[in-house]
């Protein structure tokens, strides 16, 4: 089976954290960027032709992914391609996924042998065996297979796309951008489609000024009876990092052994760009509890219920509680941080006090000294 992968890099905005990066290149879980999960899923399924669609702010993403070596995508044939606005037929950014696919038509058509397309959003994290999804898609004979997650819909959370199934497992209702009630299955933003069919649909929808994958192609097509939808229910962990609150909570959720086992080892390892560092040093006075710690750190203070990225220094007497601390932070003596996200390279002066809340963690921008 020849398969092409398309990753959407810009679909969630995390406020100040994504002013200078795509959601795909958001650091996550101490060692990763969000896109590592989508790339590793594709790579582990043997997909060797991957396009990354990125609307803006993609410099940090390109820097991270490089030629795709870490994911086995540094290939002469196929491999990895960045589909940025300026490398495509339009020079403006896109209004929806269909428009971005339309702009990437050369890429879609170029992989002549590819029969199927897997589309993944980089802000929805999972460790999924895509070969099973592909097999299910082929077996179903339907036009679109969407991966879904049960238990996300709760009547409060607005979901991009959700479906309800009847007893036979057929879609009986479908909603877009709606706080679907319990019992609906949330889209995990992974779709499998036949490539030729997709190209035809993209052209049809663009001709009618319709740009949205979820609303126009899937929902609209299904309502008219023109598009048949197969649902693949994924039992593993799916993390939606659509808001700062979710991003924060999902990082801290990694202190749960079950979540970690699922997200990092359910089907395959998660590969990332390597920045080699020494092991983390735990000093005489450090107290580390229920935390995830990357390499290269120098720990002498107290850390609780937090995620530390690489090369973080925690001075003696500093207290870090419920925080996400990105690379190269230096947290000075006697300072106190609670519910804080420190972007990369932040220095916290000795004795500082930063207290946020679970719903609204304090965000300190990259490179700041506070």
């Amino acid at each position, binding site marked *: 089976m020849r398969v092409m992968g398309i990753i959407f890099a810009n679909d969630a905005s995390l406020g100040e954290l994504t002013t200078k990066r795509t959601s795909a290149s958001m650091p996550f879980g101490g060692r990763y960027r969000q896109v590592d999960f989508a790339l590793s899923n594709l790579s582990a399924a043997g997909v060797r032709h991957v396009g990354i669609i990125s609307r803006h702010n993609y410099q940090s993403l390109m820097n991270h992914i490089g030629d795709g*070596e870490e994911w086995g995508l540094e290939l002469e044939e196929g491999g990895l391609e960045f589909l940025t606005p300026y490398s495509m037929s339009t020079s403006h950014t896109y209004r929806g996924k269909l428009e971005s696919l339309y702009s990437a038509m050369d890429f879609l058509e170029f992989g002549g042998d590819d029969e199927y397309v897997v589309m993944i959003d980089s802000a929805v994290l999972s460790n999924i065996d895509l070969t099973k999804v592909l097999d299910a898609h082929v077996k179903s004979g339907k036009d679109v297979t969407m991966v879904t997650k049960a238990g996300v819909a709760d009547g409060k959370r607005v979901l991009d796309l959700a479906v309800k199934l009847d007893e036979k497992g057929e879609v009986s209702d479908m909603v877009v951008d709606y706080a679907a009630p319990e019992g609906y299955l949330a889209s995990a933003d992974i779709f499998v489609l036949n490539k030729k069919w997709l190209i035809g649909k993209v052209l049809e929808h663009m001709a009618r000024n319709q740009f949205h994958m979820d609303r126009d192609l899937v929902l609209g097509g299904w309502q008219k009876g023109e598009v048949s939808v197969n649902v693949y229910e994924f039992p593993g962990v799916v993390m939606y990092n659509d808001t700062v609150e979710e991003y924060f909570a999902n990082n801290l959720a990694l202190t749960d052994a079950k979540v970690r086992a699922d997200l990092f080892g359910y089907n395959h390892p998660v590969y990332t760009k*390597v920045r080699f560092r020494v*092991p983390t040093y735990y000093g*005489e006075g450090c107290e580390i*509890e*229920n935390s*995830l*710690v990357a*390499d290269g750190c120098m720990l002498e203070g107290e850390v*609780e219920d937090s995620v530390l990225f690489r090369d973080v220094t925690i001075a003696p007497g500093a207290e870090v509680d419920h925080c996400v601390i990105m690379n190269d932070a230096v947290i000075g003596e006697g300072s106190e941080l609670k519910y804080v996200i420190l972007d990369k390279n932040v220095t916290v002066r000795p004795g500082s006090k930063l207290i946020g809340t679970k719903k609204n963690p304090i965000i300190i921008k990259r490179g700041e000294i506070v």
Partner: protein
Amino acid sequence: MFFQKKRCIAMLLAGGQGSRLKVLTEKTAKPAVPFGGKYRIIDFPLSNCVNSGIDTVGILTQYQPLELNEYIGNGQPWGLNKTHSCAQVLPPYERHDKKSGWYKGTANAIYQNIDFIERFDPDYVVILSGDHIYKMDYADMVAYHEAHNASCTIAVRNVPLAEASRFGILNTNPDNSIYEFEEKPKKPKSTNASMGIYVFNWSVLKEALIADEDTPGSSNDFGKNIIPNLLAAGHKMMAYPFNGYWKDVGTIDSLWEANMELLGKEPEFNIRGDERTKIFARNSALPSSYIDEKAKIVNAFVAEGCDVYGEVRHSVISVGCTIGEGAQVEDSVVMPGVVIEPGAIVRHAILGENSKVERNAVVGGAYGPGEKKAISVTSKGAVVAANTVLLPGEML
């Protein structure tokens, strides 16, 4: 094929068994023995090469090469996989003449790979071994060699007189030129010990290797044959004093000590480095380490991919280890992939890769200050069964 001319290349002798590391090198060549949580011994000379601007390294392998070859791979972790750089594994091979076969000695290993070296037409060849933990800028040594117009330069360090008879000792004139070399002398005349790091003019070395190969009864060894022969022939040979940290990790005790010397706020050997002195290693695709609320870690290195629920004191915990609840690890080196189950106690031990200490088992013993320690060792994949004891100094 085009080969860029190199001013200097390195040849790394990595074929030795390292028999004094006992069970740790039963299935692994010494240079591939894990060190410092996420390194292997060979990472030190390899990274030194890269940090010294040497981008062409021949690696001579012989004993148990599988893991070592796999580890070196295409040289990518050290940046030695580019168009004009390489980390070339050089195993013994069959030749049309009768000179083929296993590498008979260190000099013979290089002799058998003259063709590899000639491709790069080097002015200088640095000879290294995969036995030592240190950071050194070989470029400084080559510059010294060049400035003194020497045929051969040997790195030396001062050792205590009492230990000098364990080393090759260089007796030097005040200008550091060498007038005598004694391999493990009973009555050492100086304390300048050879570190086994040589810089040669390639033309001189090549001639010496060919002559040595044609000498019946030679041990084909650098220390025993090549160096004394060159001295006798009147070549200018220099000693290059090196004062930095340098540790031969050829024994269980020294391997344990070297690991312990990484610890502390100002460690004896600071493995952290700036861009010029960084030690590179092959990375494992593992997530960050999880430290549980019941864990207690004091003065220790913990690499990534670990789950720590127990107590760790003054130890080096390598990638991918699990330390169960209530387990205690003290003064120990825990190699990659080790599982220490709840309630187990590990003291003064080296736990080999993927070995396992089951529930409530005890490994090693406790010591008072100054007391002579005996390190307990588990081999790769060994299992210390639940509720059993591995005595101090015992190996499994």
